[in-house]
């Protein structure tokens, strides 16, 4: 059902010259539904994610962003094509190996946090490490320092219901990073927050991923959010329509405001000034 890592797909030039990609997707196709009614949500996506790179995924609703994220993270098996992580094809792994990979190598930040409401902030943050077999004490020490770095001093013992949306989302970030992931996936991580809170959370997310040396793959509808990432891909109808590399000169100010310059991505605008991406 799935194409193995076959030479049929020519290796792409990596987006940035540098180390081997942490995730490499080739010829991804994904169809939902049965024979009577199929939706082709992904229609030939090639993508490399470099270590510690931050990547924004944009595009109109229904273009396949969430599907791409799920396929890259090994939640969905693509109908065809392959995703390589550290040299092994995710589709070739068993369900339980993929689950373990998600726990050990990936981190997730969902739109509304999805923290366990009964657990304290600290307990939520240590859960991935404990699932990985780490003793509670060391996991707690590590997670506590993450919570503090994310500005949650004194709130470790609060339950999610006693935190603001932005605080809860920062707990989710600590949880995602607590498992020492090589890639963090975030699907509209601030969709449930107001804009100012959302931007501050995203700045924290991007900084934290950089500190932790984790790549960040983030779906967002907000161009100013996307502009904080090093690279943006704009999707349309299951394909990558365009890619944009952020000017390194702007890298010094990752939380800058939106400016209508050529590096901003407007998925619905007809022409991207940078044109064509790297395809």
């Amino acid at each position, binding site marked *: 059902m799935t194409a193995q890592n076959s030479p049929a797909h020519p290796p792409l030039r990596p987006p940035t010259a540098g180390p081997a990609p942490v995730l490499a997707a080739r010829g991804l196709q994904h169809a939902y539904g049965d024979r009577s009614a199929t939706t082709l949500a992904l229609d030939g996506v090639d993508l490399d994610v470099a270590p510690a790179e931050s990547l924004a995924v944009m595009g109109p609703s229904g273009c396949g962003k*969430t*599907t791409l994220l*799920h396929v890259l*993270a090994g*939640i*969905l098996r693509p109908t065809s094509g392959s995703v390589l992580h550290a040299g092994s094809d995710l589709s070739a792994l068993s369900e*339980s190996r993929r*689950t*373990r*990979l*998600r*726990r*050990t190598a*990936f*981190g*997730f930040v*969902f739109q509304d946090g*999805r923290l*366990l*409401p*009964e*657990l304290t902030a600290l*307990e939520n943050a240590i*859960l*991935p490490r*404990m*699932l990985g077999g780490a*003793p*509670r004490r060391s996991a707690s020490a590590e997670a506590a320092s993450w919570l503090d770095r994310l500005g949650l001093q004194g709130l470790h013992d609060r*339950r999610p*219901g006693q935190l603001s949306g932005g605080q809860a989302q920062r707990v989710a970030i600590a*949880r*995602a990073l607590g*498992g020492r992931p090589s890639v963090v996936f975030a699907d509209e991580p601030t969709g449930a927050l107001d804009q100012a809170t959302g931007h501050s959370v995203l700045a924290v997310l991007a900084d934290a991923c950089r500190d932790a040396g984790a790549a960040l793959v983030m779906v967002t509808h907000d161009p100013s959010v996307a502009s904080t990432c090093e690279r943006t891909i704009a999707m349309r109808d299951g394909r990558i329509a365009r890619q944009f590399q952020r000017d390194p000169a702007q890298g010094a100010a990752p939380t800058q405001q939106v400016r209508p310059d050529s590096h901003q991505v407007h998925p619905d605008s007809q022409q991207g000034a940078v044109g064509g991406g790297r395809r």
Partner: protein
Amino acid sequence: MSVLAAAPLVLRRHGGIATALPIIGFTASTGILATVLGGLGAFLSRAATVGTGSGADGPPTPEASNLSFLVICAIVATVLLVPSAMGLGSAAAKLSLARREKDLAAVRLVGGTSAQVGALAVADVLVQAMLGSVLGIVLHLAVTPALTLLDFGMDRFTIGELVMPLWGYPLLLFATTLLAGISAAIALAGVVISPLGVARESRIVRMSVVRLVVWAGLILAFIGALQFLPMLVGGVENGMVVMIAVSAVLMALVIGSVNIVGPFVVWVIARILAALAPTPALLVGARRLAADPRAGWRSVSGVTFALVVAGFLTLTGMLGEQGDDAAGRALATALDTGGLLTLGIAAVLAAVSTGVTQTARVLDQGRVYRSQHVAGAPVVALQRARIAEIGIPLALAGMIAGVSAAGLVAPVISGGFVLEAVLSYLLAAVGALGLVALSVAASAPLVGRVARAGA
């Protein structure tokens, strides 16, 4: 009104297991109520006819003298079973309400006021309750022929004796439906259904130690009553009746108070375990219990109740071993049959309520299971957390039920019986454990299905 007219459109799309669960609960609840009340009626009417039949002349027949005791036992069994069956009905009502929460939020979104939505929600529960109750009565009528085969050491009961009088059925239907409506209305008062969803008061639960005191106090009162009442009522006319009435009430209170002390003990132990938990499953399971000890207790309360009944039956079992004449043997047969029947009904109640609440809890936590699985929690870990969530209250329930049953039996038990009582209680506990294990195993595939659902 136009909002209410649109409501069926929103409420209709449902099916499968979510709708079936509350109806199964209502069916079992009403079916058991009808069977228990019908059985009590059978003993009462048999006592009435035998009483008048033997007349004033001569001593009462052995059957007549046994019957008055059996009637008391039947009343005791009814006192044991009816509240529990009603509890299952009200749990089913809450479940039915919970299944509808998303739909009700949607009705709010299209412009329904909270009063309209509240009325709609209760009406919806009433319909399900009535449907389930009708099914329950049908079930009761269907099993009644089998009950005529039971041997109570006298002429077998006829179908006519075991069914309720005709007027009883509409009354029962009305009562169970009303109970469901009231339970739903009370449950609804604790939630706010906004257009964006259902907000439950997320305050931190605290449990008062008063619960423990009430339970212990009632057990001591029961033991005390059995010690001192015989002296007090010794000279009074009808003293025996007064004593039996007082101890029956106290006994019902002791059994009821198990559900008062249970959540408190679960809360205390769960918090301790959560603070110390070395594994993620124990951490999550214990935290869930600490956050909602009542729900945790409810999921095993059916089993607890069956355990109390089992413990209590060791008492009647021993009483039955007295007497060597024909009347004594007949009485022993009746008590054995009645005891096993009561335990059987309690076990059915336990199985249904445990199965229904377990399945409901898995469905309720679907989203959480899903996101945990996505984030790399293997399904096994989700199962382990669930086992911890059931295992902790189950272990505590076994102890609380054991102590309660011991308290009920203590006044009449003599040293020699203790070992036997402990053994038969342990046997029942193993049975209860098996029942819960079965219901956990039965809903286990659902966890995997829910965790992998969607994308």
